[in-house]
């Protein structure tokens, strides 16, 4: 009887218990703290110096503070280096987890192969022996290859753990920090000295950023997050990294000051805005991509809690703005300030989910943009007069900011340009109209929803500077705000100095109107219907998403509003039964 040698059982893969996300959070905390320590160094070198104080007391003071500044500089560099290493450790742990999953699958497969061969050998005849031995040899070679990879994996894990431990231990004591980092020039300093001035275009900023080394770029993110976090032309991923440092630092500082009971009135306002930004990014990150099942990526594109006299400026995306095939920027309207970021984040995430659901093959990013000073007088709080007294001045200024933001998004991307859509809701549609008409905003699609008018100088879709085929309007027939725009020959802004321009859903305007009725609409005008455009399973969200995805044939068109000379304004959508197309 011929002896057949079975392949060995593959060794089990050791457990790897770790949480890369939590490790990354730890690195973020260290990075924010290093930014704070860096601020002390900057303070000592600048504002702490008292130029108009002379005499012996002044000399002693300045002699005393200099070592503090040097210590702060070296400590910030040391802590930054560890924070960066922790972040890299999180990435490596994730790769090791992925490799472990692969090894586990291979081990399971090979164990099954060995069991199968054992069963076949038990019932084999002499005639089967040669073929079975060949099969056993083949599996043996696979087991050996697996064993080699398992050993490599184990040693890679051990090496990574050792490197991380050494990074922690290397600068644990103050003496070591001084020995290693004392007198080292911050790479951010020379890089920031070459930064273009305040009037630089996004293109100039992009060129400057690309000219820096990786080390310089990483240094600026921590040492001076405010210098690049809101700078158009900087890539979204980098802005997110810088704004995350700034946001985490602000939350820590003001929360601590609040706990001591010494928060100033301004700081309280800024803290509330920072907390709103934090809530917004969590709102998005807590939801999952409908295609991959993974948490939705967020990017903090704009963070300035003190902007607009404390109203604040925040823009956060669901999805990656640097790489997405389709990018949508949602411009909110009446009553919006930074404190509404959480609510706006929900809308951005909903559009993201819908666009992904309707076209799983395309990558998407949707950003809510609270980047201008919107009117505080919300009509649903103050009645129609609230909207009536709103003028276009804020939309004009906001339009300039919006166009700059779009320019920045375009300039900072590498590779294929995104299919870019601006979605203006409510007064945000007026702002979007001004960005297009006044500033030549370079988007592929403009979507106006619930629009009270798109600006007095925009008399038809062609005035936006965009091909009218790509100018869209959604107007719920029960939305009273969407009824505020000019109809027929009446032009409020020119007749009375008030009003916000033409209704983009009207036939004379010449854009595309899409279906935007809600199944829960009321029998008459209701402010509630002004806030349903971004709800899941609505006509509006479905059509907005198809436009954002560039799937024009799938858009459900609606008949335009019209205003016959012999009668009042007519809306053909008023009597149509709404539908509920699936968006998730």
């Amino acid at each position, binding site marked *: 009887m011929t002896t057949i040698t079975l392949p060995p059982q593959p060794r089990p893969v050791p457990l790897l218990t*770790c949480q890369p996300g939590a490790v990354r959070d730890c690195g973020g905390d260290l990075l924010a703290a290093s930014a704070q320590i860096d601020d002390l160094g900057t303070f000592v070198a600048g504002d702490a110096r*008292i130029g108009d104080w*002379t005499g012996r007391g002044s000399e002693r003071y300045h002699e*005393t503070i200099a070592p503090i500044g040097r*210590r702060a500089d070296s400590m910030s560099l040391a802590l930054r280096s560890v924070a960066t290493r922790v972040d890299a450790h999180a990435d490596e742990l994730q790769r090791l987890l992925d490799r472990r999953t692969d090894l586990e699958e291979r081990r399971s497969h090979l164990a099954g192969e060995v069991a199968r061969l054992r069963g076949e050998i038990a019932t084999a005849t002499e005639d089967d022996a040669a073929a079975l031995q060949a099969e056993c040899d083949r599996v043996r070679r696979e087991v050996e290859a697996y064993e080699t990879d398992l050993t490599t994996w184990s040693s890679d894990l*051990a090496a990574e753990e050792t490197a991380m431990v050494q990074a922690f231990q290397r600068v644990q*004591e103050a003496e070591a920090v001084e020995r290693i980092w004392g007198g080292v020039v911050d790479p951010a300093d020379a890089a920031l000295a070459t930064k273009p001035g305040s009037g630089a275009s996004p293109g100039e900023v992009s060129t400057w950023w690309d000219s820096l080394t990786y080390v310089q770029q990483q240094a600026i993110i921590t040492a001076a997050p405010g210098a690049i976090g809101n700078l158009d032309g900087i890539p979204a991923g980098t802005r997110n990294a810088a704004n995350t440092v700034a946001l985490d630092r602000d939350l820590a500082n003001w929360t601590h*000051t609040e706990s*001591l009971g010494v928060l100033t009135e301004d700081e309280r306002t800024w803290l509330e805005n920072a907390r709103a930004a934090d809530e917004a990014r969590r709102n998005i990150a807590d939801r999952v991509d409908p295609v991959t099942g993974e948490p939705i990526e967020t990017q903090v594109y704009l963070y300035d809690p003190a902007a607009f006299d404390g109203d604040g400026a925040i823009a956060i995306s669901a999805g990656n703005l640097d790489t997405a095939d389709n990018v949508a920027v949602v411009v909110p309207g009446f009553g919006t300030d930074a404190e509404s970021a959480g609510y706006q984040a929900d809308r951005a995430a909903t559009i993201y989910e819908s666009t992904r659901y309707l076209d799983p093959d395309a990558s998407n990013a949707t950003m809510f943009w609270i980047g201008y000073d919107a009117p505080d007088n919300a009509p649903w709080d103050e009645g129609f007069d609230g909207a009536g007294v709103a003028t276009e001045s804020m939309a004009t200024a906001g339009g300039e900011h919006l166009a700059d933001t779009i320019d920045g998004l375009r300039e900072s991307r590498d590779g294929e340009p995104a299919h870019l859509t601006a979605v203006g809701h409510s007064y945000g549609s007026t702002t979007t109209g001004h960005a297009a008409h006044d500033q030549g905003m370079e988007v592929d699609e403009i979507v106006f929803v619930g629009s009270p008018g798109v600006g007095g100088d925009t008399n038809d879709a062609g005035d936006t500077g965009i091909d009218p085929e790509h100018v869209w309007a959604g107007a719920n027939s029960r939305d009273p705000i969407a009824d505020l725009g000019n109809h027929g020959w009446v032009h409020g802004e020119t007749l009375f100095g008030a009003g916000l321009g033409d209704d983009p859903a009207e036939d004379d305007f010449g854009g595309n109107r899409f279906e935007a009725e809600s199944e829960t609409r009321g029998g008459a005008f209701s402010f509630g219907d002004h806030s349903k455009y971004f709800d899941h399973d609505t006509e509006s969200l479905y059509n907005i998403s198809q436009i954002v995805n560039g799937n024009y044939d799938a858009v459900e068109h609606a008949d335009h509003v019209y205003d016959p000379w012999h009668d009042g304004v007519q809306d053909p959508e008023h009597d149509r039964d709404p539908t509920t197309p699936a968006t998730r």
Partner: protein
Amino acid sequence: MEVVPLSVGVASQRWDDQHLDLDAAAGQVGGAGTDGFTRAVSGAASRFLTQWQRHAETLGTDSEARADGLRVVIQDYVSSDEAAGIDLFLLSTYVTEQR
């Protein structure tokens, strides 16, 4: 006696702000989680965080000492016979620590 300008008072408040911010940074370091690390690394991470919390606290304490030192300078000056001028009242408002 040397004249002490208002800017000394402003600087003292800025040092107080640094103290607050560095205490917050210390809390942030001390509060950073180590649960995500493997067992082989978490011990070193904990020690590092504990030590660096102290480093940041020390910087905060040093900042507060600078603020206190400037307040002593202001106190000495406004209490002296040589102090004069319209800024004296304003300068005296910096003698007490605000936060």
